[in-house]
């Protein structure tokens, strides 16, 4: 059979079907038309489809494509006619009798909702912190989680005899030589460890980046702690560092207030309480006033001159502040999470609640 002949036949069939279906006015006639065109045994479409076999091979793709278009057009016209007559949408092969037009569409069925995942609440908090600190001019940096003692302790002004270096307070790596947990005097090679704070990144950045700088570093840190509702041996910290020629504690307090105000979405007051950290002097604990109470925010202070000296920065010219805070605590308070261990259990009933 010639292609154009076939195409013409298809075209006129579609015209005719559309005309009939546009004017059909009762369910019985509609069903008759349905059988006439799409009947499984001897419907018009079936007949034409058989003719496809006799089309020349080279014309087959074109013929097939047009056939599909016509079939879709007739199906659509049938559906529209059924809707117009208040019937359920036409379903081919529904097997319905003349009185019923097959299954009835139920508009109250639940919608076909896309299945969409969720972002972990800690990730959401980290992104929130990055966004706020970005607006305050702080760039994001990162560093390794497995650190040497220079970056985790020495450069941070944590001397050999400081309790923070105790093997029981850190996750030291067992080296090939099996450095025993007792060798506090740590003759080289000193064992590496999982960083106990993100302040290590301060050192790496100050070693390499030009001044002045404003950075934050975020990531996992590790401290041996028996897990309970408020403790987990792995958690996340955000560390901030600003080094410039005239950075003072006044700016530290002001930046932290801007941060807290952005994070909480209302005007917030900040309070300093004296504290002690080896890498800052003076050192303070920071609280913010929110909902009628002082809430612990984190630790902060002015970069200790010894830290500057360890990375070759002249503390007579440069000054800076640093602050650090626990991300889990902020996250848990924000989302109403009461047990830190839930964050790391992977239960989808938990994870799905943080859909935003």
């Amino acid at each position, binding site marked *: 059979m010639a292609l154009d002949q076939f195409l013409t036949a298809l075209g006129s069939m579609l015209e005719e079907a559309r005309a009939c279906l546009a004017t059909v006015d009762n369910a019985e006639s509609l069903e008759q038309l349905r059988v006439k065109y799409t009947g499984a045994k001897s419907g018009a479409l079936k007949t034409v489809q058989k003719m496809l076999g006799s089309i020349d091979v080279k014309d087959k793709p074109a013929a097939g494509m047009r056939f599909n278009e016509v079939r879709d057009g007739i199906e659509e016209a049938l559906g529209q006619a059924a809707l117009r007559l208040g019937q359920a949408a036409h379903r081919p092969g529904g097997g319905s009798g003349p009185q019923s037009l097959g299954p009835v569409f139920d508009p109250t069925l639940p919608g076909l909702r896309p299945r969409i995942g969720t972002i972990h609440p800690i990730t959401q908090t980290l992104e929130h912190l990055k966004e706020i600190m970005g607006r305050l001019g702080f760039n994001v940096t990162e560093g390794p989680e497995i650190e040497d003692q220079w970056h985790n302790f020495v450069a941070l002004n944590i001397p050999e*005899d400081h309790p923070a270096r105790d093997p029981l307070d850190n996750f030291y790596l067992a080296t090939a030589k099996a450095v025993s947990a007792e060798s506090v005097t740590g003759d080289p090679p000193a064992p590496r460890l999982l960083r106990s704070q993100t302040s290590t990144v301060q050192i790496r950045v100050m070693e390499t980046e030009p001044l002045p700088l404003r950075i934050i570093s975020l990531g996992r840190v590790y401290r041996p702690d028996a897990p309970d509702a408020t403790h987990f041996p792995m958690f996340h910290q955000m560390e901030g560092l600003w080094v410039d020629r005239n950075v003072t504690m006044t700016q530290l307090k002001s930046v932290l207030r801007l941060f807290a105000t952005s994070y909480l979405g209302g005007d917030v007051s900040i309070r300093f309480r004296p504290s002690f950290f080896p890498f800052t002097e003076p050192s303070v604990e920071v609280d913010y006033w929110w909902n009628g109470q002082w809430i612990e925010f984190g630790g902060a202070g002015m970069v200790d001159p010894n830290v500057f000296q360890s990375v070759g920065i002249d503390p007579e010219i440069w000054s800076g502040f640093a602050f650090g805070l626990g991300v889990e605590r902020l996250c848990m308070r924000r989302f109403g999470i009461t047990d830190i261990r839930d964050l790391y259990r992977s239960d989808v009933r938990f994870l799905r609640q943080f859909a935003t």
Partner: protein
Amino acid sequence: MLISWEWLSDYVKIDRPMDEVVNRWAMSGLNHESTQWVEGLPVIDLEVTSNRADCLGHIGIAREAAVLYSQPLAIPTLEGLRTSKQSVHEVLSVQNRFPEACPRYTARVIRGVKIAPSPEWFAKRLRSIGIRPINNVVDATNYVMMECGQPLHAFDLAHVASNQIIVRPASDKENFQAIDHRSYTLDPQMVVIADSKRALALGGVMGGLESEVSESTVDLLIEAASFVPMAIRRTARKLKLHSPSSHRFERHIDPNGLDWASLRCCQWILEFAGGEMLEGLIDTQPVARSGSKILLRRPSVSRVLGIEVPWAQCGQILTRLGCTVEQDEQSLEVVAPSFRQDLTREVDLIEEIARVHGYEAIPEDAMVPMVASARRPKDTMMLTVRSIACAAGFNETLNPSLIGKSPIDRISPWTTQDPLVTSVPLLEGASSLRRSLIPSLIAARLHNQSQSNRDVRLFETANVYLSQGAQLPKEQHNLACVAQSEPRLVRGVFEEIIQRVWGQDGPVLDERLIDFDFLDKGTCVAWFIGGTMLAWVGSLSRSLVQANKIDGPVAIGELDLDLLQGSVRLVPKLKALSPYPAILRDLNFIVDESTHWGSLRSTIAKSAGELCREILFQEIYRDTKRDGDGKKRILLTLTIQSDTETLKGEQADAVVADVIAACQSHHGAKLLA
């Protein structure tokens, strides 16, 4: 540190309410933990930071109050204690063989005491801060420690063999019976106070059972010594033996406070137990250490704090804290008292001024100069990665970085090196750093299964840790996915991520079929860039599925985000659309079951030429009746288009003909008519 409010009044008179004072302490560095009432008197628990050993006694806390409220501090004077004519040197000798751990050892002797209970007021003070009264001698040593922070020890002189004290390293595996009635095995890094025969006390930590003061004791040796903090900390940790004494020696206590403490203790003993103190003191290092001068320059105060503190007030604060101060218009020359070993530099003095002056004086609304900051390419990429994973229905999870040693935990597609191991486990049994995120995700899947959570899809982005010998280990940032499905779901997520992160001009990916032993054979593909694996996808092996009783299929895959980031395209660039229409051609090939789409596709790509813009896989189906066993049909669509002309049907036909011929010759593919 427990503080008796009533006891404090011995040293300082404060007419302010206790709550107010407690708050002032908190705002100047002594955090308030709690207040309890013991036998009708308030006892305050204060947190003392590790740099403030001077606050580990009532006098130190009283000094803080005196400074804050500008009150005088009254430290008891110890003059006029009567001594016998006999010198201590006639009855006792001390030899220090371990000055590295015990730089200074002093001893006094009191003879003829009568052991009895302490007076009730004295015992009550000790009880109020949680110390059990023992007798008038032991109580005096404890009382003075809680007064000034210097630990003391009283020996029964009758049990000191040859009247000789030897400060020495413990011998290896030396056995020691402490006053807690337990025995400890020592090592040579520990310091013992011994006589010529045996150890009498574990220096700085605890006294020994044999030489302890008992009801029959008559003659006493009163020890006041200095120990090196690290030596004491190590001993206490190793033996798990922590005492109020070790707690103090682990910090830097006043090296010049020994003599006051020793005399003060003797004063109480003479008062409560009688006896007679021998003349003199045995002291292995009689020269007192004096502090060096610290210069405080006037501009430095505001340079650090950002506010002006009146210059005269700066000097006053330091003086009240016990410093010796010489002040002129522009500078202060300061010598810190020996009980403040933490004050060595200018900035230390500024902190003292700041905390006493009060941090509330620092404003919180200063100008902060504006600077620009930019989002890192990594953060931009990670937004894309996470949103695609979410769009595909995956929930993000975070898991601990350390895992155990189960067969699942041993899954390691990125390295054949052993995992890095910590000397202490993170959680029970978890001391191996992850070499892959997959073990955690399979554990997560199993946890959800145990909670009846079905059809779980999870992803995690985190570092894996790959050993590199002597260098710092490689920390590779990975994405991993797990789903209850066939691997195509995970593969699709990875394809979408790669395409979106790289855009149209990313590196050429080399797709290889590979076999990981933890995957079902023949299910795994991996993509490489120049020999480095970017990602892999497959189905967890049936044996692991069965061994771990996992219900249903486990599609897993992992992608190296660092390598992905290497070719990140941050901003899409428009490619002009062709103004000429595209011709679509469906092809339906019959091929052998073993024919992979990947190889068929690459044959098509090579043979179709430039006009073929897209090779779209549609579906695979089988019609064994017509095609016979071992055959399948692959339906695909070619998009044929030119940028320079409207293609004629014949041109498209030519492309299709080339494709058919190539598929026929390379794969024996037969086009379905």
